[in-house]
C-alpha cells in the first residue's frame, strides 16, 4: 500500500516514534495522577474502589490532552499544513487519519496502562476489564473532539490551555458514559452494554462530524 493516506499514517507514526514522549509521557502522567490520589484520600479501600473508575477516566482524559495541542500546530509551523491541502485527498480525510494515528500513538498506551493502574485503586479484575474496554471504546471520541480544539488553536503560540478549556466541556458526555460503563462492569443495576453502546455512539458520531469541523477551522485559521 502506498496511497496518500496510508503513507500519511506511516509518516505520523514514524514522527511520533522518533520524537518520542507522546505515548510514554501520557502513561507517566497517568501514573503520577493515580498515585497521588490515595495519598489525598487516605487508605480507605472501599472509597478508592468506588471512585477508582472515575479517577482513572479523568486521569486518562487529562493525559490525552497533553500532546494534543501539537496535533496540527507542528504541521502549521513547518508549512506541512499548506502542502497537505494541496493533495488530491480532502483535508477532512487527512484530519481523520491524523486523529487515528494520534490515537494509536498516545491513547492506545493509556488504554493498556489504565486498567493495570486500577491495582493502585483497589479495583477488582472485572472492574479493570471494564475500565479497559470503556476507554478503548470512548477514547477515540476524546481524540476527535480534541482535534477540533487543536484546530481552533492552531495558530496560537500558547494555545494548549485554551484548547483544554474548549475541549474538556465537550468531553463530558464521553466521561459520563465511560465512567458509568466502567462502574457497571464492577457490578450494579445497570447492564454493562447500555452505557457502552452510548459511548460507542459518541465515538462514531464524533468521528463522523469532528473531522469536518476541524478541517473547516484549519482552512480558515491555518492561512
Amino acid at each position, binding site marked *: 500500500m502506498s496511497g496518500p493516506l496510508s503513507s500519511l499514517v506511516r509518516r505520523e507514526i514514524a514522527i511520533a516514534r*522518533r520524537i518520542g514522549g507522546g505515548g510514554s509521557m501520557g502513561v507517566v502522567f497517568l501514573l503520577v495522577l493515580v498515585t497521588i490520589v490515595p495519598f489525598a484520600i487516605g487508605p480507605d479501600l472501599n472509597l478508592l474502589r468506588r471512585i477508582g473508575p472515575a479517577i482513572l477516566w479523568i486521569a486518562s482524559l487529562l493525559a490525552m490532552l497533553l500532546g494534543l495541542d501539537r496535533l496540527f500546530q507542528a504541521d502549521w509551523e513547518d508549512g*506541512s499544513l499548506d502542502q497537505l491541502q*494541496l493533495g*488530491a485527498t480532502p483535508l477532512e480525510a487527512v484530519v481523520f487519519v491524523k486523529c487515528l494515528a494520534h490515537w494509536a500513538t498516545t491513547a492506545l498506551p493509556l488504554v493498556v496502562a489504565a486498567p493495570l493502574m486500577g491495582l493502585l485503586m483497589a479495583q477488582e479484575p472485572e472492574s479493570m476489564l471494564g475500565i479497559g474496554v470503556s476507554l478503548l471504546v470512548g477514547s477515540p471520541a476524546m481524540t476527535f473532539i480534541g482535534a477540533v480544539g487543536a484546530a481552533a488553536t492552531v495558530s496560537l503560540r500558547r494555545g494548549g490551555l485554551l484548547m483544554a478549556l474548549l475541549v474538556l466541556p465537550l468531553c463530558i458526555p464521553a466521561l459520563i458514559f465511560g465512567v458509568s460503563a466502567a462502574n457497571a462492569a464492577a457490578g450494579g443495576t445497570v447492564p454493562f452494554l447500555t452505557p457502552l453502546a452510548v459511548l460507542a455512539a459518541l465515538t462514531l458520531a464524533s468521528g463522523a462530524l469532528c473531522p469536518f469541523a476541524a478541517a473547516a477551522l484549519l482552512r480558515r485559521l491555518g492561512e
Partner: protein
Amino acid sequence: MRLKAQKLCIDRGGRRIVEGADFDLSDGQALIVAGPNGAGKSTLLRAIAGLLPIAAGALDLDGEAEDIASVLHYIGHAEGMKPALSVGENLAFWGAFLARDGKRGRSPADALGAFGLAHVLDIPAGYLSAGQKRRAALARLLVAPRPIWLLDEPTTALDVRSQGALGQVMAEHRAGGGMIMAATHSPLGLEGAGELRLGIAA
C-alpha cells in the same frame, strides 16, 4: 492547460492586499510576479494555491474553476520538512501524498541529485542548513509531477550554483509543457517570462 485570472482581488485581515490582478498562463509559459515588499506577491500565490480565499474576480483552469490546487506545486517560505524524518523519507512521503492519479515522479535520491544534494538523503531534515533545506523543498517539485509550479522567492538562501540548478530544472519543466509562476526580487533566468507587477495596495 491554461490558467487564467481576471480582476483577482484578495483580502487579508479585512484589508485588500491584491486588487485586480490579471494574468493568462498556458503550457510552457512562465510569469514573474514582481513588486516591492508588501505588494501582495505571496498573498497572490497562496490564493491561487487555494490557501487563501479569493474575495473577487475569477480564477479558472481550462475554463473551469475547480480543483486547481491538485495540479499545482506551491513552494512557500516554510519548507514543509519534518525535522525528525530523513530528507529521503520526507520527499518519499510528499511524492506519495501529492501524486496525481497514482503517477509518481522521480525518486527522492534522483530529485535531490538534480539540486546537487544526493548526499543528504539519509540525514534528518532538522540538520540541514537553510539553503539545503530550501533545495530539499525544491526537490519536492520533482518527486510528484504537477504541471503548475508556484514559487515564492525560490532562490532565498540558495548559492549561485544551486540557483543555476534551479534554472535548469525550471527550463526542463517548461520544455515539458509545465507552467511556472514565481514571486521574486532576483533574476531567475526564466527566458521569455511575462511579468505581473503588483503595486502597494492603497
